[in-house]
């Protein structure tokens, strides 16, 4: 088993199965009109769709080596391993003879490659099975032809074909060339393996294909790429978003030994989308010289209108907006009347600041421009977006941009935006086509990110005399991701509202969700779990606050609010988005939400007494079509020091392909949730980010991480059931479960994140 990333884009078609021409699968003919076809969901609705032609993804060499091409970005979710596990299993390949190659960015060829939205397995599991089954059937057909027997008499058996009647056997490698010349079986002709016979799918001990390379320092990330004659660059960008260069002196910078050139980069007009911020680039013989040169630049900036962005003042604006009616996003019953008639009213406002993804590998890429073509070696979650963005800044066709995908040293949404890669491309052109490596320092990363939004969530609830909830009013106010791409956007989009604001399945007769206006003054972007973070934080904190007001156990109250198990069409909760999944196949299943709540509570020993100063909190949330519930146990000492001895998280994502990686994602999600709740904050003053590095933008270190994280995976009925996402859904319930636990332990209700020293005596 080996897992180096070699980007042998053409090898997969040269080595065997792929020989000969191929026809792209899927896609509508030119005569087809949109209204003729049913609405598409899931992977089929993504740009480029899903491809399942085995000749694109599987190559079998004469020696039997099976090379599987993965077109997703590996950023820690283990997709290169899980991807290959599915194909190898379905084609009955011997794992020891499987290697994994990485596809370059090419959506027309491979289908959609955006590695975000917790979609890799959710959108591709069935396609990967089809790829494996088709490859196996082609190999079987080749053996049948060679033996002159009906294919029905040939069985695949762990990397070889067998003819039981005659006892003959051929290895995969021996028939690879013949199989490659055969037509790909039609989808209807595919026969899938009995899941009871899966060798790899569902097994926890397969081992990561990149594990050895990573632990020995051999693995290559974007920042590690080295090209002949390469130069190194850093950029001085406008400190305020939308600011521009006015005046600059570069003489001192050019005197730094090793500095080769200072290049002006244009600032794109706002909203600037994925385009770079512009500024002055220092290009040098090494990164250290570039950094020293950058320090010597003398620049006057025109900061533009965002210079007034101040987080304290902005928070007050959001709070004011949350206290007045806003655009109605969902409405059932009559909330106002019900609130007036309620025996008890509870109001709470929750605040969560901007966050930076801060992947350990800061944004970095190498570009080389040759004539009207450009090659990129980079760490990106979105190779196709990268092609398009690079093409745009260089004014060349996107097909002339080649993106070699490296391992991604953490993404969390930051590397879905290719601004840094476009900078590298512009600099290579400015240096007459020499390869240029562009590196963000950590400060660059924090100052020039695409930040998680900032929000105020105001909730108001009414209880009747028996403590039953009768009214629920939620106002969510946050600058929207769309404001980064389109002018005048002041409301959360359908996807943001569908991340836990409108789609609460509560048994409450009167329920309204409003979204007052919020203007954006910085670049907002996706951050692992996105708007689920503020929405789950507020909603699940408020459920516990209502339970307290009703004098009820928070877990029992939560279960009553969820109500009995039922399938809700998300559109009935004003969620027409539903992660772009089919509203029937991917209905909101309250039974599954109940299931994870009950499981987490049971496993955590909910209700069992704890020593003084300790407490448990619970929270549950559906996101990315998966269901998660967490019970966090905290201890708060007399000085207010918080420790988290244990977290139980129950998780239902439907069929589990790679249980060990699902567990790993949830272990990481728990700690990342703790990190954002306890420490996470990016703030602005005079339009500038106030945090420069990990001393001021703190993230959780080993000593503060929960030591005992127990992941409880819910069993799935069958492998044909729809898959939920895995990478993101573990994060949202953690902050509210933690805050609910703190309340249980201390009686203190924290509504403003991060917790930082709010518990200090």
């Amino acid at each position, binding site marked *: 088993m080996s897992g180096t990333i070699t980007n042998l884009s053409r090898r997969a078609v040269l080595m065997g199965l792929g020989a000969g021409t191929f026809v792209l699968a899927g896609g509508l003919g030119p005569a087809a009109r949109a209204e003729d076809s049913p609405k598409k969901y899931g992977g089929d609705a993504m740009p480029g769709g899903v491809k399942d032609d085995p000749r694109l993804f599987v190559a079998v060499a004469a020696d039997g080596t099976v090379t599987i091409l993965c077109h997703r970005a590996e950023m820690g979710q283990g997709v290169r391993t899980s991807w290959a596990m599915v194909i190898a299993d379905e084609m009955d390949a011997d794992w020891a003879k499987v290697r994994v190659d990485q596809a370059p960015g090419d959506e027309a060829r491979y289908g959609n490659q955006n590695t975000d939205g917790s979609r890799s397995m959710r959108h591709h599991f069935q396609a990967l099975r089809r790829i494996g089954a088709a490859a196996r059937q082609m190999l079987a057909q080749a053996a049948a032809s060679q033996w002159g027997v009906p294919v029905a008499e040939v069985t695949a058996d762990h990397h070889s074909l067998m003819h039981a009647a005659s006892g003959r056997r051929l290895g995969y490698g021996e028939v690879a060339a013949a199989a490659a010349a055969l037509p790909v079986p039609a989808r209807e002709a595919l026969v899938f393996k009995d899941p009871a016979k899966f060798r790899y799918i569902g097994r926890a001990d397969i081992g990561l294909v990149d*594990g050895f390379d990573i632990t020995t320092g051999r693995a290559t990330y974007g920042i590690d790429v080295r090209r002949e004659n390469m130069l190194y660059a850093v950029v001085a960008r406008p400190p305020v978003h939308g600011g521009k260069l006015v005046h600059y002196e570069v003489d001192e910078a050019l005197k730094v030994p090793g500095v080769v050139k200072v290049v002006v980069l244009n600032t794109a007009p706002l909203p600037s989308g994925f385009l770079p911020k512009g500024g002055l680039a220092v290009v040098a013989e090494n990164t250290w010289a570039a950094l020293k040169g950058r320090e010597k630049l003398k620049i006057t900036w025109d900061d533009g209108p965002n210079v007034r962005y101040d987080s304290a003042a902005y928070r007050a604006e959001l709070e004011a907006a949350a206290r007045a009616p806003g655009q109605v996003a969902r409405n059932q019953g009559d909330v106002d009347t019900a609130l007036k008639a309620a025996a008890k009213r509870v109001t709470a406002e929750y605040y969560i600041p901007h966050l930076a993804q801060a992947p350990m590998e800061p944004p970095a890429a190498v570009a080389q421009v040759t004539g009207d073509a450009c090659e990129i070696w980079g760490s990106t979650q979105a190779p196709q977006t990268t092609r398009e963005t690079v093409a745009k800044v260089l004014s060349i066709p996107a097909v002339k941009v080649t993106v070699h995908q490296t391992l991604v040293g953490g993404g969390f949404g930051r590397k879905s935006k290719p601004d840094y890669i476009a900078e590298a491309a512009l600099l290579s052109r400015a240096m007459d086509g020499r390869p240029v490596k562009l590196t963000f320092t950590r400060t660059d990363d924090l100052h020039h990110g695409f930040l998680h939004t900032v929000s105020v969530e105001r909730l108001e609830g009414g209880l009747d005399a028996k403590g039953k909830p009768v009214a629920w009013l939620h106002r969510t106010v946050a600058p929207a991701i769309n404001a980064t791409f389109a002018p005048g956007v002041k409301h959360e989009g359908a996807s943001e509202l569908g991340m836990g604001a409108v789609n609460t399945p509560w048994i409450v007769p009167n329920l309204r969700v409003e979204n007052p206006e919020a203007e954006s003054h910085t670049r907002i972007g996706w951050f692992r779990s996105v708007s689920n973070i503020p929405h789950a934080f507020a909603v699940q904190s408020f459920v516990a606050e209502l339970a307290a007001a009703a004098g009820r156990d928070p877990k029992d109250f939560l279960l009553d609010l969820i109500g009995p198990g039922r399938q809700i069409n998300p559109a009935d909760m004003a969620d027409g988005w539903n992660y772009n999944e089919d509203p029937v196949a991917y209905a909101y299943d309250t039974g599954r939400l109940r299931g994870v709540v009950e499981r987490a509570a049971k496993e955590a020993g909910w209700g069992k007494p704890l020593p003084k100063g300790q407490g448990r909190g619970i929270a549950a949330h559906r996101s990315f079509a998966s269901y998660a519930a967490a019970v966090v146990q905290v201890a708060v000492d007399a000085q207010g020091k918080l420790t988290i001895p244990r977290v139980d998280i129950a998780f239902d994502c439907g069929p589990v392909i790679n249980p060990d990686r699902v567990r790993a994602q949830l272990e990481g999600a728990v700690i990342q949730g703790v990190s954002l709740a306890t420490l996470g904050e990016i703030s602005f003053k005079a339009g500038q980010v106030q945090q420069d590095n*990990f001393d001021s933008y703190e993230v959780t270190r080993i000593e503060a991480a929960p030591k005992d994280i127990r992941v409880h995976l819910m069993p799935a009925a069958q492998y044909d059931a729809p898959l939920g996402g895995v990478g993101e859904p573990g994060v949202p319930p953690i902050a509210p479960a933690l805050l609910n636990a703190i309340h249980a332990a201390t009686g203190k209700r924290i509504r403003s994140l991060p917790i930082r020293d709010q518990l200090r005596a």
Partner: protein
Amino acid sequence: MPPIKLTLNGKPWSVDADPDMPLLWAVREIAGKTGSKFGCGAAQCGACTMHVDGQPVRACSTPIGSIAGSKVTTIEGIEGKVARAVQDAWVKLDVVQCGYCQSGQIMSAVALLTDNAKPTDQDIDSAMSGNLCRCSTYVRIRAAIHEAAKALEI
């Protein structure tokens, strides 16, 4: 400026560089060994951790001129019983997620176990506190260090 002479992964290394250049950039960009990572440039994340004369240092904040004559070991050159036990434990428990910080984690773990064959959880906290992992693989890092310690007992 005369070249700076050191030993890198057991071999003599003569570097022609600004003595202020951090060891990390010299190793990555001049020696071409990219296993040690840049994460913060300010000794705050540990991704760049190397051994200098056996001690773990943050190479991003160590001027190369300040360690002339020293023996530098990176993830590519680490060897011996402890290193093997740590790397084996890391693979056995599938510790890594994105993996970017892991060479630094491993260098810190090897230094810890070389000094302290049976670290407690608290020993691990203090030795590993300087190594950030944004994927948050800390639970498995801790387990792998205990696992390596156990393997070294035998």
